[in-house]
């Protein structure tokens, strides 16, 4: 409770400082002011523009997120269980992964145009690598002794995958998913900034184009809100899908 109060006070103080310094210390043209931003944000909400553009970004992100995560998990499982194949593909994967994925945006614009598809593919590419690497490591981390014990019980590869490898990789997958939310947003928003007429990135770029600093901040606020909502959703999914971890958390607190 004390912490919460402290946080509220701190944020309030920062906003107050911002409000006062606008027009006195710094030019209001560049930094706008919290009251103006709040007004702009309220206008975005009232006119429904925030939800329209936000909705576009969410669709791009979610589609890219799902496609990237699904292929990432699948390829991670496949390579995790096939060391030979993983070794064979290693240089190619390392090369592609070393590339900052947003650098692929111009290429994707050429290939797929400036529509929603290009943002989905860009997002999917970014998410794929994060989830793939996490899943791969998760699979590789399964104790070989456990695998042998289950083999003696008569387990075949499909049993091992369903009963051991997928569940134990799941926590790694979630780590990858949590990690990829901000990156998925990067994919969608950068795609929109570069070329689009819809989405939060477009809203941001549009306000900047009109030299509307308040509008830029309002759009940024929208993006932050979206990111927080998604983080929360993944955490909720993790809690529901890995209930045994809840127990571990309780226990650690009890000790």
């Amino acid at each position, binding site marked *: 409770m004390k912490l919460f109060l402290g946080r509220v006070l701190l944020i309030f103080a920062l906003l107050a400082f911002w409000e006062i310094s606008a027009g006195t210390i710094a030019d209001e043209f560049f930094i706008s002011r919290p009251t103006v931003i709040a007004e702009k944000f309220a206008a975005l909400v009232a006119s429904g523009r925030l939800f329209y553009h936000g909705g576009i970004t969410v669709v791009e992100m979610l589609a890219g997120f799902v496609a990237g995560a699904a292929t990432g998990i699948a390829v991670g499982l496949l390579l995790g269980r096939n060391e030979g194949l993983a070794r064979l593909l290693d240089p190619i994967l390392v090369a592609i992964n070393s590339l900052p994925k947003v650098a692929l945006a111009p290429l994707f614009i050429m290939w797929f145009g400036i529509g929603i598809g290009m943002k989905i593919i860009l997002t999917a590419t970014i998410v794929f690598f994060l989830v793939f690497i996490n899943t791969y490591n998760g699979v590789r981390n399964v*104790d070989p*002794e*456990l695998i*042998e*014990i*289950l*083999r*003696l*019980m*008569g*387990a075949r590869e499909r*049993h091992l995958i369903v*009963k*051991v490898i997928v*569940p*134990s990789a*799941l926590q790694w997958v979630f780590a990858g998913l949590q990690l990829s939310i901000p990156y998925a947003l990067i994919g969608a928003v950068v795609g929109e900034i570069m070329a689009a007429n819809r989405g939060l990135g477009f809203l941001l770029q549009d306000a900047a184009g009109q030299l509307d600093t308040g509008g830029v901040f309002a759009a940024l606020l929208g993006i932050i809100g979206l990111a927080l909502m998604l983080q929360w959703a993944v955490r909720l999914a993790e809690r529901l899908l*890995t*209930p*045994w971890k809840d*127990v*571990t958390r309780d*226990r650690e607190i009890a000790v």
Partner: protein
Amino acid sequence: MGDHAEIIAFEKVGRSFAQKNGELVATRDIGVRIHEGEFVTIVGPSGCGKTTMLNLVAGLLRPTTGTVTYRGVPVAAINGRTGYMTQSDHLLPWRDVASNIAVPLEIRNVARGERRRRVAELIELVGLKNFENVYPSRLSGGMRKRTALARLLAYDPETLLLDEPFAALDAQLRVRMQTELFGLSRRLKKTVLFVTHDLDEAVALGDRCLVFSERPGTIVKDVQIPLPRDRNIMELRRNPLYQRVCGELWDFIAPAIERQAQEAEKR
């Protein structure tokens, strides 16, 4: 034990492993016959191939030389009639006690009702009543062992391969688990190969004790333990015969352990 059928036979068995600087001979020239229902303990210095011996019986490894036969047939694949338990209990953290125990039954496609009945029976057997729905992260070390033991017994393997299963437990709990394991193996007529570092444990549990030499390991002593088959593990401590056998085994194995310690120091 002559009246019981032979179940495992090692014939001049050796096993080496490829290493960066040539070949590491883990074991050589192992020859031993083990009979149904025998509780055989295996002791020896670290790295002498005790675990290798279990892996050969389980079919996780093939011998480099010689043959390992199980019920007269050379072991050529994973040996599903054996069950393995190691120092780590390897429970699945995302399954509660009952569902951990059910794993081998699920693998063997046992029908749901039958599975439930069997799991309940096993839970009763190892004394885990009222803990069916607890996740392993909430269990104590002893309960985790019990769960692992119940899971091991669930698919009814005729031979149990135990590799220092109680090494991580504190002394008191260890004696309790020893007592239970001993009782269960007798009641269920299991053949047991039990690797341990602890000579007292080897004497307390074994009908017979195999002593390994340093690497390349081979069996240098095969002792029948002159204690009754239905002994009371808890009361052994005061048994002079038990003390004498432990002492003799110590005297026999101490020089090797001493040598190993000295070599470790030199390094």
